[in-house]
């Protein structure tokens, strides 16, 4: 299951690489710069991430806590 997921992720990334990236000027970034397109957690999610880190064993790779700072794992 996990191995298949990783293979799929790898395949997806390679496909992205093939399609390649376009060099955008700042004025072409109106959609990319939309606040909903931000590559991060929303502020309003802050406490959701906190309770998930208490109730679940996995954490990290989401710009949130990776352990420490509270009684969570």
């Amino acid at each position, binding site marked *: 299951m996990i191995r298949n997921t990783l293979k799929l992720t790898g395949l997806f990334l390679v496909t992205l*690489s093939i399609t390649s990236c376009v*060099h955008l000027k700042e004025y072409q970034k109106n959609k990319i710069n939309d606040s909903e397109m931000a590559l991060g957690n929303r502020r309003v999610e802050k406490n959701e991430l906190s309770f998930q880190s208490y109730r679940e064993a996995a954490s990290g790779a989401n710009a949130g806590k990776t352990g420490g*700072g509270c009684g969570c794992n």
Partner: protein
Amino acid sequence: MKKVFLSVIGFSLICRLSVQAQEKVDTTKNKPAFSLYTPVEQSSTTYAPRGLTVEEVNLVSSYYSQNGFHSPVTGGIGSEKVTDIANGIDLKLAWGDPQTKKYSLNLGFGYDHHTSASQAFISKTGASSKTGERIYPSLDYTIENVKKGNSFGFGAYYSGEYNYRSLGADIHFSQKTRDKNGEFSAKLQAYFDQVTLIYPSEFIPTSATNVEVTTASSSGEGEGRANIPSSPRNTYTASLSYSQVINSRLQVMFLVDGVTQNGYLGLPFHRVYFNTGKDTIEKLPSTRLKLPLGFRLNYFLGDNIIIRSYYRYYRDSWGINSNTANIEIPVKISPFFSISPFYRYYDQSAAKYFAPYGVHSANDEYYTSNYAYAKFQSNFYGVGFRIVPPRGVLGWQNFHDLEIRYGHYTQTTGLSSDVVSLNLGFK
């Protein structure tokens, strides 16, 4: 795993080559023979350096309510009923020249109040306090060199509750690519925590006469706790990320954390019941390594729909493997109002040291009946609403945006919860 890393490296290399191929160099050879156009030299003095300004203030409040029947305080059985009210304020101060060098100082302060049914049973009779508070101030200072596209900063945090104290610090660095369509970030973090050794009442050493020992909440704050020993827990994290704009509608981000923990990694008031019926205190190894890998992809579909997606693979040295997949689809009903349904799937395998109530043997080296380390799947779904009126919320120009979000969470262990969050943004 090797394939994933190679793909990531290959992907970023191809991006770099592609960008170089598309960049046009404006040389004198490309000038027309005759033109009325006179180039205007750009001056950085167009924007005067700013004094200290309050750039942004955000207030975040949440109400969380949970129910379940596998509390670790009572050895994997018993009520997990919890309610928590969290309130936080974040203040961003900025100064400097927006065209050359910007400075920002983020100050945060949070306060939580919770009630927990199982906390009462730290004392065998259920007489311990059910309530507790936590405060958590933070600060972050960042210098951004706009021309060079890099930033550098550091942060510090504190978190204090009756049975747990934490001091943390970080340094962080980021560098944009030459075309400003990609960005690499690195962060080094350390937490130095102290776990107060509050044991279940039946395990209090007979020499301890202080009654506060059995109370894991704020009611005994002060002199009583000073007599209770604590044990350290240290966490060190290295976080790396790379984000890339693929085209005018698509951007992606890769994230990887390396985390190492050492010290007291359990909690002293978590009971474990052996198959003999005798109870003891949870015992876990004093080290743990974690490796989470994350990937984000955001796509702007048409003019009104955005697809925000996230996947994380996680594994650690306690034998836990986990997958997290998240999708959120904000739909812009108007340029100033959006509705965002979301869904999150999570699964994990059990830690090597987990067993339910009454299953562990007294011969086991490590043991816990905390269901956070059990095998389970969870689902989390809900919806958010966000308004960003051009003249401010309720006509108040400085009241920039308002966001409210509700989510329902279920685990296959039987735990379920609801959370409502509100964010008020001022500029």
